[in-house]
């Protein structure tokens, strides 16, 4: 479960900035095409945050959906998965969102 190592990295990255200060909330942006599951992140967060200043913090995850633009017909469309195919049949598409895996901000008390 890669979510565990990712959340351990998150705790590391937050503590590097906030030190001892109690953290009330952590804001993430995790796209639907990122390969990481928000529910698994929530589960792992409780485990890795225990005993740190992040214990009990709210984990707020913004989940942008996959959106792509076709370079052939210029249409924008929702990407349900990683299959990069425009309804017009072209595979020349650019992913605009959905692949985000970002630690956006933290709220400290």
């Amino acid at each position, binding site marked *: 479960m890669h979510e565990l190592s990712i959340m351990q990295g998150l705790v590391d*990255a937050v503590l590097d900035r*906030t030190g001892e200060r109690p953290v009330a909330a952590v804001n993430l942006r995790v796209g639907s095409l990122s390969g*990481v599951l928000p529910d698994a992140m929530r589960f792992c967060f409780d485990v*890795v945050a225990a005993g740190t200043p992040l214990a009990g913090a709210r984990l707020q995850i913004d989940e942008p959906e996959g959106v792509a633009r076709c370079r052939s017909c210029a249409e924008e469309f929702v990407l349900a998965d*990683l*299959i990069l195919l425009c309804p017009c049949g072209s595979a020349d598409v650019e992913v605009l969102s959905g692949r985000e895996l970002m630690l956006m901000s933290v709220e*400290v008390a």
Partner: protein
Amino acid sequence: MCTTCGCGDEANTRVSTLQQPEGMLEHEHPHVHAEGHDHPHPHGHGPGHEHTVHHPETITLEQNLLAKNDLLAARNRGWLAGRGIRALNVMSSPGAGKTTLLVRTLAELGARLNAGVIEGDQETSLDADRIRAVGRPVIQINTGAGCHLDADMLRRGLDALDPQTGSTVFIENVGNLVCPALFDLGETAKVVVVSVTEGDDKPQKYPHMFRAADLVIVNKADLLPYVEFDVDECLRQIRQLNSHAHFLVLSATTGEGLAGWYDWLDNASTRSDTLTESLTDAH
């Protein structure tokens, strides 16, 4: 578990050469944590009031959650390139035939490629023992609970293996088609092995892995007459995810199709191959 940051994976990871007792290559815990921080607002308070109270605030970080791994991977990539060493990250589900393919490749090509191996497994050194038996240098990394190798583990593996300039390093990742796709190691190329007994819908089920691949090997081709596995359908799914990957069908045990793999190995130091080239590689 690291008591500073709570990270657990790396503390469980063991790197061993099989020649010296385990533990001799234990690494120094590499990361640094902030040593406290300055009070940001030195406003006045009454006498005798010593406080470390901060006011609530939002701190903007806006960083990729894999940033640390990506940084270490970039360092590995630079280190490898500087020495002309080619590192191939071989990934698959458990049992697809990674070790079998590596053992055969090393027996036939190991000396010419000056090849060494970094073996990733959760437990045991069984695969590393199989490699060692062919007489090539091998380092075992046991990830414990960890289900993938990361860039820091590769760094430690490379330190222990100490590969020569111009050599080839095969990395056998932990058997898993999910997370190894997300953790860049700094490798020269990613090789994904799928065996015909697993079904031809693997690319659809594990899109991240097949999207990241530079080469996809369909192994156990000797079993094609006995199982339902449509090679063209598998290739079609891969093409929907990945337009540049090379594609080979072979059998690591009978040797059928291995010539294509050896050709790829001879040419893989240059990664920017064209789609036409890769399509002609298909069976």
